[in-house]
């Protein structure tokens, strides 16, 4: 039938989108169903692979045996990250970094955070604390305090530019305008900033921030980089926008903004999902399904007092005991046990303890991924998304 997709991907986040790209590149016809924009929109846009040690790929070896990275394998993780970088370059939002080397970015609190691949605009964010840093902010911009950042460094200064608008998106919108950018550059030139690096909150345009950032760098003869902001986070939005664009270019059908209302099964096969709507709503039919709905924050898992359930197929969820064992006493200590919860899968990313055999699971909904503890959120999403796609796209 004309309406049956090879694979229907549920969840339009990092993992689902990367799976969709991998599958369309294998010639498959794909639909992505998402109940809204993903939480990667709120992220820094940086790809954390594994924060422990200098080489995230080597670090995989020291993870517990049940960590989903082991299902993918070091080489395949690397290949999936390369694939991600290639897609982002195609979409004009090139990423820099090497899967074998962690690097640091500057946070709006003035501290460094460890990550792996970063948007081109943050290439120079990893600096030595002796270097001079000049932080730029914008008049009345919310949740960004340049003095807070500079107070961490001996050698730092700041200046405030009046963009005529104070919201992150409003300022980013203006940076798309040639005249505004030129005005900003000539203002910067007039500041007489000492030799060193220039840090600007991540508002350098909606789509072509890398170009804007490079232009400012060249005009000023200084290394310029962006500092990710609190949401709305432009680097996260650009990341989502670029991947969504890559999906549209590949002819992926998007079903956005509606929750899944019912699932049709026949024996061990899932046949279709129907989306919730005011009246009769779209029915999306597929030969195989990928579940990439994320963990608690994204709504893939839903916790009640003493249990948690998987929200689309009601798959069995691994839980680390009763509620009292879910959390550490120290809130800020890494590794709350609840983070281990999720869906257990076999080598082929099929959920265990179910009869369904045309369903594959990827991303942070996987049990034992502990993305906060290991700082591996986007890395797990990309690696398992591509890996699940490779399994499910294989000719039967």
């Amino acid at each position, binding site marked *: 039938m*004309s*309406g049956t997709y090879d694979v229907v991907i549920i969840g339009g986040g990092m993992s689902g989108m990367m799976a969709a790209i991998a599958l369309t590149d294998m010639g498959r016809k794909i639909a992505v169903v998402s109940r809204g924009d*993903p939480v990667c929109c709120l992220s820094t846009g940086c790809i954390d692979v594994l924060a422990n040690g200098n080489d995230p790929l080597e670090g995989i070896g020291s993870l517990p045996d049940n960590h989903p990275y082991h299902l993918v394998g070091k080489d395949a993780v690397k290949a999936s990250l390369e694939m991600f970088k290639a897609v982002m370059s195609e979409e004009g939002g090139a990423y820099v970094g090497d899967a074998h080397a962690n690097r640091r970015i500057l946070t709006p609190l003035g501290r460094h955070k460890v990550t792996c691949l970063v948007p081109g605009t943050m290439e120079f964010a990893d600096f030595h604390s002796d270097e001079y840093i000049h932080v730029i902010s914008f008049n009345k911009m919310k949740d960004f305090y340049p003095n807070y950042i500079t107070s961490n460094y001996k050698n730092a200064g700041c200046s405030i530019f009046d963009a005529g608008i104070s*919201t992150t998106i*409003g300022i980013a919108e203006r940076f798309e305008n040639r005249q505004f950018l030129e005005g900003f550059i000539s203002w910067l030139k007039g500041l007489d900033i000492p030799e060193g690096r220039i840090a600007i909150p991540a508002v350098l345009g909606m789509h072509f921030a890398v170009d804007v950032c490079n232009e400012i760098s060249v005009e000023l003869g200084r290394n310029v980089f962006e500092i990710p902001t609190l949401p709305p986070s432009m680097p996260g939005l650009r990341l989502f926008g670029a991947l969504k664009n890559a999906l549209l270019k590949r002819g992926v059908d998007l079903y956005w903004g509606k929750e899944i209302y019912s699932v049709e099964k026949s024996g061990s096969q899932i046949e279709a999902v129907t989306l919730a*709507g005011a*009246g*009769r709503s779209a029915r999306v039919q597929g030969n195989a399904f990928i579940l990439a709905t994320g963990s608690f924050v994204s709504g893939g898992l839903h916790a009640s007092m003493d249990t948690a359930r998987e929200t689309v197929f009601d798959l069995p969820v691994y839980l680390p005991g009763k509620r009292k064992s879910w959390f550490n006493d120290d809130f800020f200590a890494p590794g709350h046990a609840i983070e281990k919860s999720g869906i257990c899968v076999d080598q082929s990313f099929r959920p265990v303890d179910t009869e369904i055999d045309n369903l594959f699971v990827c991303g942070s909904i996987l049990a034992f991924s502990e993305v906060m503890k290991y700082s591996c959120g986007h890395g797990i999403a990309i690696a398992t998304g591509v890996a699940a796609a490779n399994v499910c796209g294989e000719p039967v």
Partner: protein
Amino acid sequence: MEFDFQHCIRCTICVANCPVSRVNPEFPGPKQAGPDAERFRSDDETSIDKWIRLCNQCKRCEVACPYGVNPAEIILREQVRYGGKHFRPLASRVFANNYWLGAVSSVIAPVVNSLSPMKFIKRLLNVFGISTYLPFPRFHVHTLSRSWRWKGRRRSQKKVVFFYGCFLNYNRPDLGRNIRDFLASLGLRVIMPGQVCCGLPALGNGDIETARKFARKNARILAGYIDRGYDVIYSCTSCGLALTQDYPGILDVPDGKKVSENSYNLHEYVLKLMEEHYIEPVFESFHRKVAYHIPCHLRALGIGYPAAKLFEKIPGLETHILEDNCCGLSGSYGFKRSNEETAVKLGIIAGHAIKDVDPDMLVSDCGACRMQLAHFSGISAVDPSEILIKSLKRETQ
């Protein structure tokens, strides 16, 4: 429809998707205007949020929200509450009744068409708060409501009611008649019964009573046909949104749910017929590169992009989907002087995105989008059904 602002975790994804707050700092965005402000609102107190009217009801926030909050609907309810308590400007009153405006204009179409481009008329309209940066659409005497209402074999297995909407009726009756004939050529019995405005313009202009009056009448007519085995087909995506979401939702009219469950987008219906093997059409090639601007309300319908799926089957057709921009006109929103600046800024942004594709033609399901974007991109705009009809011309069943 679920209606719970308390699910909002203030993540700002809606703000990132709001076209109005992107260009107009006066509007605080869907998060503040919707769930945030809702906590402080009470039916016992008069609505005072004047800026609530700046929302253009594109519903992009609702499509984007990952937590099931419907900011646009919260805002819409407040717009209605505000409209009920405050003086509504003349322009709002006029556009709420655009059905009657169209009815009168079409009767005296030659007069209206020759008057509307005149400078002093434009100045007069400006005085009344109506903006004139866009040329007004042309009106036609031979409207759809005055056209032949039946087509197709009486004994056809499938029967459909065509809900054509005001734009096709008054401004593009030729296209409406083509769609009617096209549906008949697919082996359907097509009926275009007497019908009124879907009610969305009245609702968007804060006049829920008028909207409900229209909706009640349509629902009664359509439900009568549905009971006799007809499916409802709409081609205007905003009419479709009213039929499927607002009739059983905010307007809450009798038979609203029945209408909602039995209404189909035109292209969605064609796909359905193909899936059921009711038709097995042969698509003729059409060698063009088109930019397909997805109307905000097509996104809000949550049915995917059915016309784009049909386009994939047309040999030679290269489709570029553009779904990130609102055209800015938003029905009658941009025709109000108070919103003109916002509408123009958004039109320019969306126009640039189209020009970047460098297409042979521009496609969009929504008449308002087409008017606005043809103006700002300088590229002629067509409805997706025009391409489909062209490609399936020799289709016989």
